[in-house]
């Protein structure tokens, strides 16, 4: 459905994305993970026909994004990151305007239908300027869905929403993703884990990892980290925990709790729990710590430090 080959975009002398190549199939929800400025939005803007790449090509449903831009734009629904809205229009008029631009037959009926999908039917005649952030986000989503697009491109669709709305949007995306292709960007790993079939991690304009969310996490988590909290002095607990076989690198955290690592394939939590209780301490918390996106990034983008030379001095700089 989406086929990107060697996509590169320069802003002046700065390279925003560098030789990106990836595919997305029909019925696939592809997550785009990356820190700010990684090139997520730039890639999406190129795929939606908003801007031209410096080099490289991309095809959506067989249409070239440059040569057949209008065809591409017809089958793509796009929700930009900061949802652009006309504040002086009503929700209905706004959606009707985009429905008309997309030449949807019976546009008014379709607008009513999509308003129901995003639960805004009671706000149809309200002005957009009076909507809350979450509602605006849903208006933007409705705009992207109005023409039942084959490919949906969502730039940070859940940013700024409250938890209930986030859940709703995620469910909606999952529902749509069953028969459509969705490319969505996020910087929340758990979100990608929950809704995406496949994740691309990009950093500084380059793909640094590409896999299913589960495999990605397993691959990165060579060791498992466990968080432990007890009542009372932590120092006593440290000695107890350190004595359990399989535990390594115990670190005391500032909030009077500790973390320790074990090998990924070895679960020592029952042993630790027994040891702590046997020592007469009150166990409050014991849970595995999963790597956050930030840590995965650090893992993936870490620059190898220069190896010290044999005699221990740092290599001379020139």
């Amino acid at each position: 459905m989406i086929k990107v080959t060697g996509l590169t975009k320069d802003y002046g002398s700065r390279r925003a994305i560098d030789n990106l190549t990836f595919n997305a199939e029909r019925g696939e929800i592809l997550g785009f993970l990356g820190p700010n400025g990684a090139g997520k939005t730039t890639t999406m803007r190129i795929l939606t026909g908003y801007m031209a790449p410096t080099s490289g090509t991309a095809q959506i449903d067989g249409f070239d994004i440059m040569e057949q831009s209008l065809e591409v734009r017809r089958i793509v629904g796009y929700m930009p990151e900061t949802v652009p809205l006309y504040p002086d229009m009503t929700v209905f008029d706004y959606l009707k305007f985009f429905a008309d631009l997309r030449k949807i037959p019976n546009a008014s009926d379709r607008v009513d239908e999509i308003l129901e999908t995003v639960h805004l039917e009671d706000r149809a005649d309200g002005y957009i300027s009076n909507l809350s952030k979450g509602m605006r986000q849903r208006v933007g989503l409705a705009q992207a869905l109005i023409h039942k697009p084959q490919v949906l491109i969502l730039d940070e669709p859940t940013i700024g929403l409250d938890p209930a709305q986030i859940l709703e949007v995620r469910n909606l995306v999952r529902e749509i993703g069953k028969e459509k292709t969705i490319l969505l960007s996020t910087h929340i790993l758990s979100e990608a884990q929950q809704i995406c079939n496949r994740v691309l991690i990009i950093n500084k304009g380059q793909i640094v990892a590409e896999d299913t969310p589960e495999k990605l996490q397993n691959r990165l988590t060579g060791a498992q980290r466990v968080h432990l909290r007890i009542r009372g002095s932590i120092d006593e607990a440290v000695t107890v925990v350190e004595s359990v076989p399989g535990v390594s690198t115990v670190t005391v955290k500032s909030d009077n709790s500790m973390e320790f690592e074990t090998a990924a394939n070895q679960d020592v939590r029952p042993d630790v729990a027994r040891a702590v209780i046997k020592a007469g301490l009150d166990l409050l918390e014991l849970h595995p710590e999963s790597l956050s996106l930030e840590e995965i990034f650090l893992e993936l983008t870490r620059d190898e430090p220069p190896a010290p030379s044999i005699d221990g001095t740092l290599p001379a700089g020139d």
Partner: protein
Amino acid sequence: MRNIWVIARREFKLFFISPVAYAVAFMIFLILGIIFYANVAAALAQQSAPTVQIVIAPLVTLLLFTCPALSMRALADEQRMGTMELLLTAPVRDWELVVGKWLGSFLFALSLIAVTWVFPIILNILEQPGIDQGMLLTSYIGVLLLVAAFLAIGVAVSSFFSNQIAVFFITLVIFLVLWMISYPAQAMGSTGGDLLRALDMSEHFYNTFYTGILDLKDIIYYLSVTLLGLVIGTMSVESKRWR
């Protein structure tokens, strides 16, 4: 073509909730009314019969200064609000967007100009045997062509910036330059002077339409300026995709 109409219709409707449009309408009607009253009163005292020029001359000057305000929002505001991103990713050709924006503001200007028709009607009732209908018609045709050209330039300027105030002043400066470019014509000798006169917007209006003459070359002049404005606007929108 339907896209042009969809965009023009939204643009047109927006003028009716825009304070700028009301200010423009109020200013045009108020000043035009005062000047009209003063002229009619003076004509009564002197027992003379004024022509439709007492309406057209101030109307054209007012349009010169207010058209930048009607076109300044067109594309500038879309860029400021980020909605340009939606328009450029919708299946709309760049020229359809620019022409739609121009058409919307032109239709609004048209409805303002239509209201000013009441002054010639009053004049026609006051005078015996009525005013010169030919001059009335050519003057209004000229005003429409002039406004079409004004707004096309305005839309083109608004495609370059996201700040409406900047667009207003730059558009106004371009209008004034084109309006007065023939002033140094006499000092320039025949070739240079003719060239300046050919480029001048007021020369193409006051010498013909204003005096009751329809000349094809003036019609072509205004249509060319309109087309040029729309082409520049389209090119500017297209170029945004390459930045």
